[in-house]
């Protein structure tokens, strides 16, 4: 009995003694947040479709920490303090990420020491400006102005303009209950694009709906969107 007590006591001492420090590391504690912006305006993209990669060198194998931008173009990462390189892989996003002279995606160097907020400046092919979306009599109507940002040799045409509506805040090609498509070739005035969609039956019913206008750019996979709006029905 005495011996058992002794062993239990010894075990407790060992557990408390050994588990306190050396083999326990604290998790990453510095938050990196920010948005995709063009001259201060947020770039809205599809949820979970535009990826980014963060590299930290100096620890043997190199592999990216990957993530995707949220619908409103924001991102957030929990990192250790240290030096990182941030990049967007080639061909991703409805925008041009800065490139090196060799034509590969350049990186943005980030030094983390404590929380940091960093907006990423990119050049989109187009911007959806002054989008007005309203709901009335079973329809959602939208109007907007489409501004062509990249006009040099790498400029791209608009393949289609689409108005999406959904019951939840995720509104895109893969998350919608209805959409209307206007082919880019049939838009006559890019300063005044009008588009509307009929609201289908909502099951179960709800008295609000989310909508946004997206532009599909020819030869670019990801779409760019207007800011999300919540409409009361």
């Amino acid at each position, binding site marked *: 009995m005495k011996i058992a007590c002794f062993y239990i006591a010894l075990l407790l001492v060992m557990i408390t003694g050994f588990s306190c420090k050396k083999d326990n590391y604290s998790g990453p504690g510095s938050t990196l947040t920010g948005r995709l912006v063009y001259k201060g305006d947020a770039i809205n993209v599809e949820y979970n*479709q535009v*990826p980014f990669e963060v590299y930290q060198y100096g620890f043997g*194998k*190199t*592999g*990216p920490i990957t993530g995707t931008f949220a619908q409103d173009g924001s991102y957030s990462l929990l990192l250790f303090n240290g030096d990182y390189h941030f990049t967007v*892989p*080639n*061909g*991703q996003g409805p925008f041009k990420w800065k490139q090196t002279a060799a*034509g590969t995606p350049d990186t943005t160097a980030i030094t983390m020491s404590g929380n940091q907020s960093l907006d990423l400046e990119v050049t989109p092919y187009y911007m959806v400006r002054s989008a007005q979306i309203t709901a009335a009599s079973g329809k959602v109507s939208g109007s907007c102005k489409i501004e062509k940002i990249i006009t040099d040799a790498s400029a791209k045409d608009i393949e289609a303009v689409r108005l999406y509506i959904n019951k939840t805040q995720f509104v895109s*090609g*893969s*998350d*919608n209950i209805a*959409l209307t498509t206007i082919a880019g070739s049939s838009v006559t005035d890019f300063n005044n694009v009008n588009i509307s969609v009929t609201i289908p039956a909502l099951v179960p019913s709800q008295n609000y709906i989310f909508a946004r206008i997206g532009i599909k750019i020819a*030869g670019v*996979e990801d779409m760019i969107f207007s800011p999300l709006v919540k409409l009361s029905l």
Partner: protein
Amino acid sequence: MNAMKIITTIIITAALFCATGCKKDSDFLNVQPTSILTNEQAFSDPAQVLSILADLYNRQLDFSSLDDGWVTFADFSESFPSENGQAGIVQRTQWDFGSWSTWDYGYIRDLNLFLERCTEAKALSDGDKTRFLAEARFLRANYYFEMTKRMGGVPLILKSLQYDFKGDPTYLQTARAKESEMYDFIISEAEAIKGSLPADVNEKSRASKGAALAMEARAALYAGSIAKHGVSTPLVTLPGGEVGIPADMATGYYTKALNAAKEIINGAAGAYALYNKKPDLQDNFANIFLDKGNNPETIWIEDFKLKSGRVHGFTVSTQPRYGAEEEEGGRMNPSLNLVESFEKLDNTYAPIPVTDALGNPIYYNDQLDIFAGRDARLGGTVILPGSLFKGRKVDIWAGYQLADGSIVTGDDRGAQKTLPGTSTPVQVVGFDGPINAKEFTAQSGFYLRKYVDPTPGAGSRGTNSEVPLVRYRYAEVLLNAAEAAFELGQTTDAANYMNMVRTRAGLTIPLTAADITFDRIVHERRVELAFEGHILFDMKRWRLAHVVWDGNKMTVTDLLSNIGQATKRNTQPWGLWPYKLYDPSSPNNGKWTYKIVLPALVTGANRFRLGNYYSFIDDNTRANNPKIVKQPNQ
């Protein structure tokens, strides 16, 4: 005396020591293990070598394989997966970048080792050795082909690599070859080995001359189409050529594809022909995949054998459930998207006629009447409602429709209810469904027929099936020839090859040279080769995958319009449900009417992103070998 004795003992002992000590220590300790063969022993006997080769055959990769369950057959909106655990296939909104990837360099190493050891073997006859080496080279080329289809250019390792344990493995790191170099390798290997393989139509489970040429034709066709159609997706390329083939190489590849196919067609590899043994064209088409005795169509198969342990449960998983052995099956439900794409016998496309021109429902006397006058491959690929499997009618019907349009149905197989105006409950839904979310029923209104084995016992778990997986068959060679000829501008030849395949399917009005379009080629492959693991790779090489599976949900209009067009959207599997009219006052009472439905579990829409064209290479692989460049658009 005593001393004498001692001396004698000493001498004898000394003599013994000398005698035993003569054997060298190294000889004494170096004992050959009795349970492991040396390379020389292993390669001393042809039967022994064949058993090593059998393992290498077994490790070949197929897109969909019969012994790997049924799920690999079920994707791409060509069917609905009727097992609730697999509903993810129709609920997800995109494929992972890692889908369909393969990176089995362990297998490549074993093939290379086999080639090296077999080359060195002394005891084998020259004839045996040549054939074994050719077979291993065929397997290696075919696996590299499989890798190239999925990953683009990969490191082309053609000898076994040995690490020297000096801490620096960089000399073992090989960069990815160009995609065109991969196809060049496969084509040149096929050319090099075809003469060493038997030109025997009955050699099916081992490599034959026909198999090598069929591989060559398919590979060259893939390369040609990537060169030609890659122009439409400039983003799907890499600057080093690891992904993408320059457009000016297209003609060269198409020519090689056509020549290789022609070599099979003109009989140089054996007397291959289209299977034409049964008078009923539907049964005949289904039998291509079931008949193992003197089947002139199949070129290379993965074979199975009953009672040998090498059997598969594909039939158990997919047979019509009602009346099946052990009441199991029903997992593969071909979609209306596929069913409606089978042509009418006058070579035109039309939706399955549910309503007449005015929009009124059509009533049919027999369930099968709605499918009458179509391509025989429809009934050979799909078990239609009202058709027979193992001599028994499948029981697929969704319920009674009443005069006012309302539906009486049940939520269990063969459920009973009382119809209005009667007092006895009657069956109101088929024992094979369709019932939404009721797994193992025909939720699209159809069951799969291709590869489903009607042999007694094949549908029971204890017996299983020995139907082989067809890897290359003659009809595909003809379609490869047709496509290559079409792309080379030889439309008359293309029409001839297409018509051979189509006549066998009952489409007896020949297509003329002017009828052959790219859409026709795409369509013909889709219906002839459905559920044979082609659709993904075909859509990829035509660069149509991101168009056809664009992530947008389908409307009924999408479904019914543009049938037969290569760019037709195909993102969700639709169904066609039969109902029986219950209206005693109507002349149509008891007749059949059909409704187009989207199975309730289908909530997602297939989305093929540009990054899906070439599967993701693992970060770990790229960290170990920094020469490996990343795939585009990921």
